[in-house]
């Protein structure tokens, strides 16, 4: 019996040693056939059990079962190991160079001005301002006269104007390309009177200016108008500070100083601390530490009246800001002409 037990142990050790040598599917199958197969070592050993004396059988049977289970487990493990090795080898052979460039996804892009306008609309939209559209070709009256700038008013010098000939010779009209989005104030007031108003008017404006690195003959503005029974200059400040902090970032200081626009009084210029130098003074802010961002003011009583609102009952504020300029400042763009160049090398940078 002792010998039998030693035979079993030797057999197990021998089988396991040979299993460890099996390095491919064929060797593994041969081992399985030889050891665990129907005519294999284990089957043979089991047959040997029956020839033992009855008293020895239970102990020998138990040992036999232990050995059999151990060999079967070893086989399963070996099989899994070989599978894993094979997979690893196969995967290794499929290695690619992950540093090669990806395939272009073919996605286009929006114009930087579209993106900037969206940002502006979003901020004012959350303060209750809705978009109002108005036309680009205007009459002299809407662009100037109704905004408190009669003919030959000195303030007209501030805006060099493209004039447009009437489309038919016998039509009596002073037409021009709007020099600012402000004519929309009159359109909006006349449409909405007597309701309170909170609108922004984004759009293209035109100036009779040479096209250079710094000036363009067309660009975008966003006008804002709030009219109601309790609108104050304090509201103007709060609204515009909120805008500046969200658009440029809360780290930049904002200041308001007196200015002049014929269609507002008091009139305001809003400056923010130079976003290039942080207010220390640089060539962009002309060493002042401040950047002019927008003009604003309380709607002039004459303009309110021209829009239909009684200035003794209603008050309002208005503001107008360029869109290209803040985009230029934010993105350090060195040539305003790029906006209308259609140059994809520029446009795709902001897509």
């Amino acid at each position, binding site marked *: 019996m002792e010998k039998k037990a030693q035979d079993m142990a030797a057999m197990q050790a021998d089988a396991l040693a040979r299993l460890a040598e099996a390095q491919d599917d064929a060797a593994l199958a041969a081992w399985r056939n030889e050891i665990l197969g129907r005519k294999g070592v284990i089957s043979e050993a089991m047959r040997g059990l029956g020839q033992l004396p009855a008293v020895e059988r239970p102990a020998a049977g138990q040992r036999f079962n232990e050995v059999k289970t151990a060999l079967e487990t070893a086989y399963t493990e070996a099989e899994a190991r070989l599978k894993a090795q094979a997979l690893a080898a196969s995967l290794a052979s499929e290695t690619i160079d992950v540093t090669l460039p990806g395939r*272009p996804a073919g996605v286009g892009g929006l114009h930087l*001005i579209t993106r900037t306008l969206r940002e502006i609309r979003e901020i004012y939209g959350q303060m209750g301002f809705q978009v109002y559209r108005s036309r680009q070709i205007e009459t002299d009256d809407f662009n100037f006269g109704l905004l408190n700038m009669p003919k030959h008013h000195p303030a007209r010098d501030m805006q060099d104007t493209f004039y447009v000939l009437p489309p038919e010779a016998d039509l009596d009209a002073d037409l021009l390309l709007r020099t600012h989005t402000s004519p929309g104030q009159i359109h909006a007031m006349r449409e909405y009177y007597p*309701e309170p*108003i909170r609108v922004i008017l984004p759009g293209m404006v035109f100036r009779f200016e040479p096209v250079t690195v710094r000036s363009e003959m067309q660009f975008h503005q966003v006008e804002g108008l709030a009219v*109601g029974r309790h609108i104050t200059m304090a*509201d103007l400040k709060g609204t515009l500070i909120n805008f500046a902090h969200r658009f440029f970032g809360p780290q930049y200081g904002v200041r308001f100083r007196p200015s002049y626009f014929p269609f507002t009084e008091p009139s305001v210029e809003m400056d923010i601390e130079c976003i290039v130098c942080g207010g220390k003074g640089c060539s962009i802010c002309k060493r002042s530490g401040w950047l002019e961002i927008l003009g604003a003011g309380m709607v002039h009583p004459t303009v309110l009246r021209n829009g239909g609102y009684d200035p003794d009952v209603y008050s309002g504020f208005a503001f107008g800001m360029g869109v290209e300029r803040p985009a230029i400042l934010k993105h350090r763009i060195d040539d305003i002409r790029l906006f209308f160049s259609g140059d994809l090398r520029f446009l795709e940078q902001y897509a």
Partner: protein
Amino acid sequence: MLVPLSWLKDYVDINVSIDELAHRLTMSGLAVEKIERLGAEWERDKIFVGRIVRIDQHPNADRLVLATVDYGAPEPQTVVTGAPNLKVGDTGQKVAFAVVGARVIDGHKDDGSILVIKPAKLRGVQSAGMVLSEKELGLSDSHEGIIILPPDAPVGVPLADYLGDIVLDIELTPNLTRASNIVGTAREWAAISGQQVRYPNTEMVAEGEPAAGKARVVIEDPDLCSRYSATIIEGVTIHPSPQWMGRRLTLTGMRPISNIVDVTNYVMLELGQPLHAFDYDKLVARAGGQPPTIIVRRAKPGEEMRTLDGVQRKLLPDMLLICDTAGPIAIAGVMGGEETEVSAETTRILLEAANFNNLNIRRTAALLKLPSEASARFGRGIHPALTVTAAQRATELMRELGGGTIAGGVVDEYSVPAETVVAALATRDVQRILGMDLPAERVVEILRALEFEVEIADQHGDDWRIRAVVPPHRLDVSHSYDLLEEVARIEGYDRIPATLMSDELPPQRPSGDIDREERVRDLLAGAGLQEVMTYAMTSPEREATLHPGLSAEAVDEPPYLVVANPIRPDRAVMRHTLLASALETLANNARYRERIAIFEVAPVYLPLPGEALPQEPRRLVIALAGPRQSAAWSGTSAELFDFYDLKGIIDMLLRRMGLEGTWAPLTDHPTFHPGRAAQVCLADGPALGPAGELHPLVRDAFNAQSGADLPAAPILLAELDLDAILARATMDVIHTPILNRPPAKIDLAVVVDEAVPQARVLDAIKASGGELLREVGLFDVYRGPQIGAGKKSLAYALVFQAADRTLTDAEVAAQTQRIVDRLARDLGATLRA
């Protein structure tokens, strides 16, 4: 406006730092653009006011002298100089003297480079220091001779203290007439800093005969000239102005000419009233020896005169002239005449101080292209009260600087006396409009500081009704809101709180149009197109290239809106189409890249018959050219964009906007390839516009007209009516139930004549497929010998499905047969073998 601090200090104290002064002026409305510090680089321990002790000849050089200069040190210093304005024997001149080690600008170079003065031996004589020229001090480019200072210049004082100055450059918006002069600027600072202005003397010592006997003034057009005041001074001597006056003029950007002319400019800068000096003797001569009559009137048709710049000018009616009985002697407020101008021989002066209509002067100056300091001031508007004050101030200065006797009194024709302006304010409006709590007392105090005469008409608690008499220098103030602005700016905008509106929210309206327009942009960008923005102005010639064979005139329908003052000839009309702009963009980019896929959303400008204002319909243009896919290392597809790429994008766009497009062949549009273009319409709706491949003749015409090169690859273009798309777009999709029963999939290939459009086959399949036909898709088009010439095979994948049962083979076969029968009957189609 340039404001030298040394001049400003004549009228008001500056009791703060310069930066503080500039800041407070800026924050109260006078925006200080720049602070120029003259002489800031002059080292106070190295550059001094010096006095020439004596000038000796250089022993070894004819052109050099030895200058011994006392500059306050115990021992005078001797230097070698070649300055032509120092001669042997000179003594006593005041000069600018730099000792060894001083840094000055190199007078022999033009780049402003700096030179450090070193001891040197010049032709054997030791020189330690330098007498300086204006160029070496950075005052001007003059290096002809050294600068000679006024005789009263204090020897030994650092030059920076004596000649240095600080000049504020103040940006003047059109309303700031009040600050277009030094006294006005002083008045502003006085109000801000709580001081009184020290006004200059405006009395004149007039000891001559009454002026009234020496000249007469007739204002024929009082609508353009409300007042004309004249003084006369006799026996003056014309010579250069004293240094202090010349320097002040130079610092404010004017050129000193002679004492009399300089006084007119000086007083204009000081008080804001432009003045003009006539040679009185020439006026007398023109009047045939009689006392002259000054006539203020509009120009007569065809009238001309020679102005003092020597130009013979044609005058237009409505230009205001100063004339005498012999004709024009000046263009009012703009420029004097050559014949009566002051010359070196002049001894008698008639000085004009007048008030002209500001708009008329602006117009005349603009028409004649003669902007000047005077016309700019008149153009902003001046109060007529100022004429006599300024005339007396100037005449007295002429007497002090040029000698002579002033004729008694002022010839003063005041045809339209100015009305006193009173502005009323209820102080509660400070809260209502400014949103700021300010005691009524403070409101009154601010206005009084600005020289308003304030009267309190009524008091209800803190709500006072006040009446403010507007001072003459404030033509810009007439109403309550003008007063509010004064209160706000003097109190300081930074004292106004910042609040968010508490007023009633306006009725909220859907902004669907904007949202939909932005969705179009997003969809097209998502489809791989880059958005561009281009010029709204174009030329008829450029757009005519879209109609090859037709002239620009022939395609002027509707007429163009023409820009009256175009900046460039190729930007002279408002565009009718975005197509030509898209071609420009393609041509501009073709130099840099092969693959171009762009879109633009913008209005075009179309006049309506009988209407002045045009329509501005929004259009969408799409342009594609070059390889369909961007170049990549992994094998680049050589396939180029074709019609079906364009169509795929547009169909995707329409579908995502909740719309369905229909495509009909477009064979006669001059811009497009006749066999590769379509008119895009909305199903049951309006035409949206053409889409297709660019006609080769258009490419040639565009290249010839622009001198540019469009891409050689096919160009796909579409221009669609965006307003129509946005108006009909809907995001309200109705749910289609999802069926879980197994679908039956059938492939059906039919052969039809080449001329049969695919859409008709598809429509016939859909029409005959019944409810069970859920999907149908074209997956192949085949032409070849198997099916014969003039035929094509179209292969469709059909999907049949029912909601409530699994379809039997028999049901599917029967339905398929119905389709085949219909195709055979309507289109002569046969099943492909």
